[in-house]
């Protein structure tokens, strides 16, 4: 058993490896950690590399994968790649949910029954409030996509990113997702982090190393401590949570991450529940 497998088994390292598929996005959300937008540098990982990371993660003893961006579904090869990755490890794919055209939904049938969850962002049960953060027509498109994916038997999770959420608002959201066929355990509420565009929008909570679970995160530019690490501000990639520029073979960044975790002062467990 590898040292990494042991650390994952003992709960010293989280079991999930994240992959930043790309950085560009069709939306321009006000709190976006990666300053994603249609015209930014794509920083694409590529299908081949995503499959390599998945295979190496499995061989090392990691237990699941996450794919994020940018908007991963801008990549033509994404669904096919996810299906192949899911043969190696269970996977959650984060998306804004606005690109599920008829053709994409047809492709998504291949996800039915596979250990894949599509995690879609929906920030409010109020279309106006939601669309203020995420752009015009977002609410309508997202709700339609969730409905269509659930109808095709694809597991959908809903992620709500919010500065504050009161009980009444939360209840409205929960009614909405239940009505769409998404179970309570598949609804996540997480805070906005003060990184990326959130800094300029004056949103979010400050974070440091100890706030974030050490989830190995692979990007085209290097390996990071957490999926909240490889953020972009002022067009410049953040480096404060960079683990290593080397990402292959995966045991190299994984072992450095483990070394960093073991060097962290006792009691410095992750404080924010952000996934």
């Amino acid at each position: 058993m590898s040292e990494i497998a042991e650390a994952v088994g003992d709960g010293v390292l989280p079991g999930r490896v994240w992959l930043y598929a790309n950085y560009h996005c069709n939306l321009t959300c006000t709190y976006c950690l990666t300053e994603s937008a249609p015209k930014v540098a794509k920083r694409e990982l590529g299908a081949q590399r995503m499959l390599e990371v998945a295979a190496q993660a499995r061989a090392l003893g990691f237990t699941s994968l996450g794919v994020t961006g940018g908007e991963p579904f801008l990549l033509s090869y994404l669904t096919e790649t996810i299906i192949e990755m899911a043969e190696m490890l269970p996977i959650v794919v984060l998306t804004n949910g606005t690109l599920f055209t008829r053709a994409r939904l047809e492709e998504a049938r291949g996800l039915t029954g596979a250990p894949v969850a599509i995690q879609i962002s929906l920030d409010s049960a109020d279309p106006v409030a939601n669309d203020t953060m995420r752009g015009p027509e977002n609410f309508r498109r997202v709700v339609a996509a969730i409905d269509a994916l659930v109808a095709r038997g694809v597991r959908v999770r809903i992620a709500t990113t919010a500065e504050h959420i009161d009980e009444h608002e939360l209840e409205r959201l929960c009614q909405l997702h239940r009505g769409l066929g998404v179970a309570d355990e598949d609804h996540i509420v997480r805070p906005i982090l003060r990184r990326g565009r959130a800094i300029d929008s004056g949103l979010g909570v400050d974070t440091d190393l100890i706030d974030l679970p050490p989830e190995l995160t692979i990007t085209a530019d290097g390996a990071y401590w957490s999926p909240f690490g490889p953020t972009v501000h002022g067009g410049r990639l953040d480096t404060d949570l960079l683990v290593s520029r080397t990402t292959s073979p995966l045991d190299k960044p994984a072992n450095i991450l483990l070394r960093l975790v073991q060097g962290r002062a006792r009691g410095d467990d992750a404080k924010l529940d952000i996934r």
Partner: protein
Amino acid sequence: MELLDARRAPLLARPFFEGGDPGAIASAMAHVPEVLDATMPFLVQMFGPSALPARTKELVILRTSALLDCRYCIQSHSIAARDAGLAREEVLALRGDGPLGDQFTDRAERALLDWVDGVAGSTGPVPPEIGEALMSHFAEPDVIELTLLAGTTMMLNRFCTALGLPTSQAALARLAEDGLL
């Protein structure tokens, strides 16, 4: 070329920033933290205290840097050499701003400077008589360490020169004070 500061220092690089600005070389290398992490202990060993006297080491470093015409290293090590006890005139001579022979009359130091010129001032083998002269004054482990020191300095010379690393304001002020700018 962005020199990373403490705020942007990657995780493996953070310890090097704990005592303040670690200097341009570490701040540049911090972009590749795993390289910084592996390189700094080596550099600290090579350039820090060791079995060789600080004066001897600075002769090698400053002379090598002058031969490779590295502004950053010449400036930084003019200060280090002064701190190691070298006279201002010795520093100038090592930098090529005065005749070496006038300043360095000690036979061991002359043999060492000839060796450095052979290692860093040309390509190909160092003439055997220069090696023999060096060996008559220094023990074998010293020769190994001195040669590695010259080679390591050459690596840093090319790194700093190619990337155009800036000399710190504090170092420039000190050099100006000493008439070594």
